[in-house]
C-alpha cells in the first residue's frame, strides 16, 4: 500500500514535471580549466613507524603536472577522511570540489605494503573507482603513478601516462671531457637510471614496443652504429654498423623489426632490419637524403624526412615498398616525423621564421598545427596516451624537457630538471 502510494506520488511528480513549461538553455561555451580534485593524505595505519613515502605527494604532483588537474592544497581540505562513510559531502560541495581521493596505507606482516584507495564523486556521492593492492616497498612509487593514471583516466577519459618512462640523452661537460649519457626515468623525473655513458655522442634513442629495450645510435667506435640495450639487464647488442651512416632506429609495432637510415649503398636511404634473421631491406631509392623513419602504429607504413623536393619534407612509404608520397606541404622545413598512437597525426619539427617548433600534421586534412613558440625545439614524441608530446627545448641551461598537449593547449612541466637534455622519447605503457 505504501509502495503503491509512493508510485502514485512519483508518477504525479513526473507528470507535473512534464506538464510544466521547461526553459531551454543552450550551453555552447565552456572553460578549459584544470579539474579540481582533492587528494586526501593516505591514512598511515602503523603508529610509531614512518610511512615509506608520501603517496599523496606523488599523485598530486602527477596530476598537477599534467595540466589537467588543479589539486587542492592540503591545508585547504575541509576534512581528511580515509573511509567513504566519513566523507562529509556537503563540506566538499561547498568548496566546489568535484572529486576526492581517499586511501589507506598498511604495512603487512610480510613487510609488503597494502594500498587501498577510493576515488569519490562528490556531487553524486558515489565511488568512481577503488582498488586494494599489496606491493613490494620498491613498487610503492609506481603504485602511486598507477593511481594517478586511474584518476586521470576516470576524470578525463584519456588513459594516464604517469606510469611510463622517458628515455633521453644528456650531454655534460666535465672539465675538458664531454660525457654523453643515455638515461631512463619515470615520467615524473624520478627513478633516473643511467643506461650508458660515453665520451662519444649517443643519439636517437627508441623504445621497443614492450618498453624493455632501447635502440640508439652510438659513436663509441668513432663511427655510428646502432645498438639495442635491455633497460633491465643492461645487456646491449650492436645490430647495425655499416660503413657510413647508421642512424635513426625505429621499432616496428610488433617489435620484430627496426627501420633505420643507412648510407652503406652510397646514398642516405631507409632500410628495414629484421631482428630475427638480421636481413636488411632497402625501402627508399632516391638521390636525395631520406632519413628519420618512423613506423606507423598499424605497422604498414613508414614516415620519413626527405629533401628530394629541395627542402626537408615528410613522406610516407609503404613498408612493402612502392613510391613514397609526400604528406607535408606547409612551410619549407618539416622534419623528424613521429606518428601519434592512433596513427591520425604526425608530430614533427616545423621551421617557422627561423625558429624550429613542435607541430602536428593532421593526416586527414594535411594541416599543420604549430604547438610551441620557442626558438629551438627538437625531438618530439607522443606520450603513449596520445595526449601529450614530449620534446626538448633549448633553454638557459641548454636543452630541457618539455611537453605540450597534442592540441597545444596545455604546456606541461616535466619532473626531469636536468640540464643538457636532448632527444627525449616517451616510452610505451608498461605492461
Amino acid at each position: 500500500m505504501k509502495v503503491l502510494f509512493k508510485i502514485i506520488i512519483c508518477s504525479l511528480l513526473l507528470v507535473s514535471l512534464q506538464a510544466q513549461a521547461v526553459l531551454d538553455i543552450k550551453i555552447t561555451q565552456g572553460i578549459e580549466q584544470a579539474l579540481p580534485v582533492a587528494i586526501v593524505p593516505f591514512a598511515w595505519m602503523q603508529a610509531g613507524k614512518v610511512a615509506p613515502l608520501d603517496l599523496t605527494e606523488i599523485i598530486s604532483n602527477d596530476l598537477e603536472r599534467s595540466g589537467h588537474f588543479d589539486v587542492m592544497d592540503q591545508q585547504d581540505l575541509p576534512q581528511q577522511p580515509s573511509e567513504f562513510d566519513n566523507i562529509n559531502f556537503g563540506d566538499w560541495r561547498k568548496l566546489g570540489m568535484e572529486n576526492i581521493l581517499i586511501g589507506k596505507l598498511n604495512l603487512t606482516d610480510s613487510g609488503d605494503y597494502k594500498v587501498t584507495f577510493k576515488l569519490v564523486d562528490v556531487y553524486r556521492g558515489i565511488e568512481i573507482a577503488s582498488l586494494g593492492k599489496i606491493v613490494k616497498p620498491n613498487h610503492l612509487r609506481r603504485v602511486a603513478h598507477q593511481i594517478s593514471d586511474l584518476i586521470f583516466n576516470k576524470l578525463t577519459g584519456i588513459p594516464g601516462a604517469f606510469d611510463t618512462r622517458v628515455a633521453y640523452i644528456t650531454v655534460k661537460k666535465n672539465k675538458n671531457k664531454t660525457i654523453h649519457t643515455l638515461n631512463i626515468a619515470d615520467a615524473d623525473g624520478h627513478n633516473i637510471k643511467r643506461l650508458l655513458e660515453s665520451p662519444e655522442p649517443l643519439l636517437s634513442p627508441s623504445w621497443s614496443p614492450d618498453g624493455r629495450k632501447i635502440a640508439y645510435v652510438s659513436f663509441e667506435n668513432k663511427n655510428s652504429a646502432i645498438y639495442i640495450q635491455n633497460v633491465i639487464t643492461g645487456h646491449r647488442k650492436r645490430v647495425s654498423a655499416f660503413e657510413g651512416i647508421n642512424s635513426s632506429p625505429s621499432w616496428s609495432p610488433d617489435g620484430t623489426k627496426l627501420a633505420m637510415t643507412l648510407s652503406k649503398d652510397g646514398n642516405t636511404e631507409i632500410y628495414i632490419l629484421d631482428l630475427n634473421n638480421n636481413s636488411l631491406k632497402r625501402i627508399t631509392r632516391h638521390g636525395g637524403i631520406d632519413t628519420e623513419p618512423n613506423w606507423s602504429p598499424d605497422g604498414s607504413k613508414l614516415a620519413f624526412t626527405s629533401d628530394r623536393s629541395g627542402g626537408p619534407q615528410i613522406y610516407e612509404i609503404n613498408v612493402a615498398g612502392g613510391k613514397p608520397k609526400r604528406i607535408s606541404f606547409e612551410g619549407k622545413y618539416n622534419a623528424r616525423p613521429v606518428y601519434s598512437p592512433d596513427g591520425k597525426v604526425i608530430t614533427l619539427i616545423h621551421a617557422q621564421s627561423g625558429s624550429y617548433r613542435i607541430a602536428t600534421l593532421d593526416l586527414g586534412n594535411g594541416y599543420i598545427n604549430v604547438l610551441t613558440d620557442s626558438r629551438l625545439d627538437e625531438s618530439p614524441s607522443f606520450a603513449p596516451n596520445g595526449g601529450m608530446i614530449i620534446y626538448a627545448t633549448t633553454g638557459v641551461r641548454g636543452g630541457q624537457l618539455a611537453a605540450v598537449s597534442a592540441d597545444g593547449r596545455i604546456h606541461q612541466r616535466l619532473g626531469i630538471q636536468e640540464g643538457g637534455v636532448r632527444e627525449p622519447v616517451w616510452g610505451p605503457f608498461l605492461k
Partner: protein
Amino acid sequence: MRNNWLLSSGSFLLSIILHVILGIVLAFSFKFTSEPTPPPIPDIPIIQATVIDKKEVDKELKRIKEKKQKKIDDELKRKKDLEKKKQKKRDDIKKKKAAAKKKIEDEKIRLKKLEQEKKEKKELEKKKKLEEEEKKKRDAENKKKDEQQKILDEEKRKAKEEADRLVREKAINDAIQQEIDDEIEAVKKAEQLKRDFSIIARFQQRIRRQLESKFNKIGLDPGLSCVILIRMIEGGKVVETSIAKSSGNALFDQRAENAVYLASPLPVPEEIRVFEKMRSIRFTFEP
C-alpha cells in the same frame, strides 16, 4: 234707347250704387276687418221702387226680371265667384296673414327663442364664465397643486432619476471600471508577462554564463552534445537532474552534469511567480 239707357242707366246706376256700397263695405270690411264677413244681403226694396208698363212692364219686368235675375245670378255668380275669389283671396290673405302672423309669431317665437337663447346663452356664458372662472380658479389651484405635485413629483422623479442615474452611472462606472480594471489587468498581465519574459531572459543569460563558466570541457572530444533536465527549488538550488539525452560519452555527460552542480544555486529571480516559470530547465550542452 234712352230708356234703355235710362233703364240701363237706372239699373246701371243702381248697380253702381250698389257696387259702391258693396265696395265700400267690402273695402271697409276688407280694410278693417280681417274677420270673415258673411255675404251682403241683396237690397230688394230699392228695385221695387221703379215700375213701368205692366205687361210690357211685366214683360219687360219679366225680362228685366229675368235679366235682372240673370244679372243677379250672374252677379251672384260673379259675386259668388268674386266671393269665391275674394274668399280665396281672403283665404289667401288670411292664409298670408296667418302665414305672416305665423311668421311674426314664428319670428316672435324665434326672437323670443333667440332672446331666450341669448338669455340662456348669456346665462350659460355667465355660468360658463363663472364655471370657467371657478374652473380656472380650480384649475389654477389644481394647476398650482399639480405644479406643486409636479414639482414634488419632479423632485421625486428627479430624485429617483438621480438615484437611478446614480445607480446607472454607478453600474456604468462599475462596468467601465471593471472594463478598465480588466484592461489594466490585461495590460498589467501583458506587461507582467513581458516583464517576466525579460526577467526570465535575463536570468536565462545569467544561468547560461554561470554554467558556461563551470562547464569544464578540458580533454573532452569535440562534437559531442547532451541534454540535461533540471529542477530547482526556490533560491535556485538544483534538486533534481537527469540526463535526457546522453552524448554517448559518459565523461561528457558527467562534466555537463557537474557544471550544473557547480553552478547551483543558479541565479533565479526572487519573485516566486517568475521563478515558477523557470523552475525546470532543459540544458543542451553542445560546445
